[in-house]
């Protein structure tokens, strides 16, 4: 049915996607890789228009135009700090689209005469269920990251039971659909998937959310692959499988960068593992100081390490921070940025944010490279970060972040925290380092305080 030239175009598009993933895994080739991927996608879409006789062509083109406008505007307008939730959103709509495609294909198949092959039905059921999970799960992660709802794990008594029931329900409906392919079973299966997605993501807390986005991304990839099988389209099969496989692998790498197992990430809260979080500000005594005192500490140090966190980016203080670092370096002080793998909201997010502020790439040190150097540091300046320097990760079994590799800021001679308040970090637990005798706190909005600090350093 599909002409040979079109099959060849699909093959070319599939090759583009492989090259895109390859390119994206190295900094030098990343941007070209992404471009090659986009070319492959455009090629695929143009091919489908010429390969087969389509009805409703005008409506389809209008729908594509609408989607393009929404996608481009969304992607261009979003603040770099909000990018993780945008990726979650894009992933969710992709999963939703796959589920809808499978439902339509089911309707097409059941309205015709003759039996539908069992394999096709299995793939259809899979696409509907997992696509719906991916859609609703991504919407919940979006709400969490956008702070439309609490970022902490949400659990309630009976959640494990509800989850198990929803999972069984989804499985049962899938079997029913394969045995007796009727439309209403498919629709109910979709709703079961939606419920399952919500229940899957609700108990995932704070810092683990990015891992879940990556996992749902892999899910969507697999649904696209299954959808490709149902439609008899090799490109969808190959592209979906590529994303499914690489996404699963990437999820595993992210989880290990945070010292978590995937199972723990998803079901840790259900086991009661992360109930330690207080989530409220503590009133224990801390030592705080003004910008002038901190400026002196910084200016008379030999070695300074900056630990930037999400708070820095939210306050848009990264440009001022870079000026401060330039000023310190002009005074002959050695300054580096220590970048935790999950600084920000996602692995690599902080690198993107600092690159935006034109911090030279050479000053950004990865955790493994800099952790040995904290002992020699005179001052560590922690700006808007918390969980990534929280010693509880090493010392408190049962803390939600226990086992996560952290930056050894506690080994430095002096630690300065720039914080807005005593509120705990994303993981919702208290940081003992704040109460350490060698720690000084500098309260205030990061941008405002950073400018004061900058002028204080300049005037020394």
């Amino acid at each position, binding site marked *: 049915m599909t002409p040979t030239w079109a099959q060849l175009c699909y093959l070319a598009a599939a090759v583009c996607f492989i090259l895109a993933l390859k390119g994206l895994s190295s900094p030098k080739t990343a941007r070209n890789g992404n471009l090659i991927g986009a070319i492959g996608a455009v090629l695929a879409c143009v091919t489908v228009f010429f390969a087969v006789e389509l009805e409703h062509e005008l409506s389809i083109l209008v729908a594509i135009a609408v989607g393009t406008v929404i996608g481009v505007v969304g992607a261009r307008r979003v603040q770099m700090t909000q990018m993780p939730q945008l990726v979650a959103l894009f992933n969710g709509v992709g999963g939703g689209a796959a589920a809808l495609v499978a439902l339509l294909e089911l309707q097409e198949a059941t309205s015709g005469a003759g039996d539908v092959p069992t394999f096709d039905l299995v793939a259809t059921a899979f696409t509907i269920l997992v696509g719906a999970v991916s859609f609703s799960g991504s919407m919940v992660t979006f709400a969490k990251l956008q702070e439309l709802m609490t970022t902490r794990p949400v659990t309630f008594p009976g959640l494990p039971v509800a989850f198990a029931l929803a999972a069984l329900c989804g499985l049962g409906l899938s079997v029913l659909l394969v045995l007796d392919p009727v439309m209403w079973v498919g629709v109910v299966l979709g709703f079961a998937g939606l419920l399952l997605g919500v229940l899957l993501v609700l108990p995932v807390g704070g810092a683990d959310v990015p891992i879940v986005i990556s996992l749902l991304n892999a899910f969507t990839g697999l649904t696209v692959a299954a959808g490709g099988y149902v439609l008899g389209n090799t490109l969808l099969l190959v592209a979906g499988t590529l994303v499914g*496989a690489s996404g699963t692998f990437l999820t595993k790498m992210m989880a290990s960068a945070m010292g978590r197992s995937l199972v723990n990430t998803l079901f840790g809260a259900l086991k009661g593992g992360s109930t330690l979080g207080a989530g409220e500000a503590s009133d224990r005594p801390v030592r705080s100081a003004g910008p002038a005192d901190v400026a002196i500490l910084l200016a008379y140090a030999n070695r300074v390490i900056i630990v930037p966190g999400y708070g820095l980016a939210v306050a848009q203080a990264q440009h001022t921070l870079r000026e401060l670092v330039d000023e310190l370096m002009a005074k002959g002080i050695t300054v580096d940025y220590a970048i935790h793998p999950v600084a920000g909201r996602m692995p690599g997010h902080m690198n993107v944010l600092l690159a935006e502020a034109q911090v030279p790439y050479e000053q950004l040190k990865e955790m493994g490279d800099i952790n040995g150097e904290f002992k020699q540091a005179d001052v560590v300046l922690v700006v808007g970060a918390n969980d990534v320097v929280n010693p509880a990760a090493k010392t408190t079994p049962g803390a939600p972040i226990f086992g996560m590799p952290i930056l050894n800021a506690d080994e430095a001679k002096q630690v300065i925290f720039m914080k807005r308040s005593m509120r705990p970090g994303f993981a919702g637990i208290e940081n003992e380092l704040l109460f350490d005798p060698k720690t000084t706190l500098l309260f205030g909005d990061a941008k405002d305080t950073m400018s004061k600090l900058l002028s204080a350093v300049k005037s020394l």
Partner: protein
Amino acid sequence: MSEPIVWLTIFVLSVFVGVEVISKVSSTLHTPLMSGANAIHGVILVGAILVTGFTDSTGALVVGLVAIVLATINMVGGFVVTDRMLQMFGGRKRQEPKA
């Protein structure tokens, strides 16, 4: 070779390619890579166009058009936002980060 076996072969080989091509990525690029892969599965748009183009019921047409809009958002938005992220890495001299 029967057809399901051909499909299974393509699937299994793609799994290996998918894992192999990204096995050496540095943690710096995790986010753009995830976002790029996210854009790639937006190619479900092709599937959405196919099912919509062959339908003759109005209800299915509406659902299909919704699927097309969603898939296009996924695909176009995904590539654009990935490019925006990577734009910031480019343009300056830098060393290759160690994984």
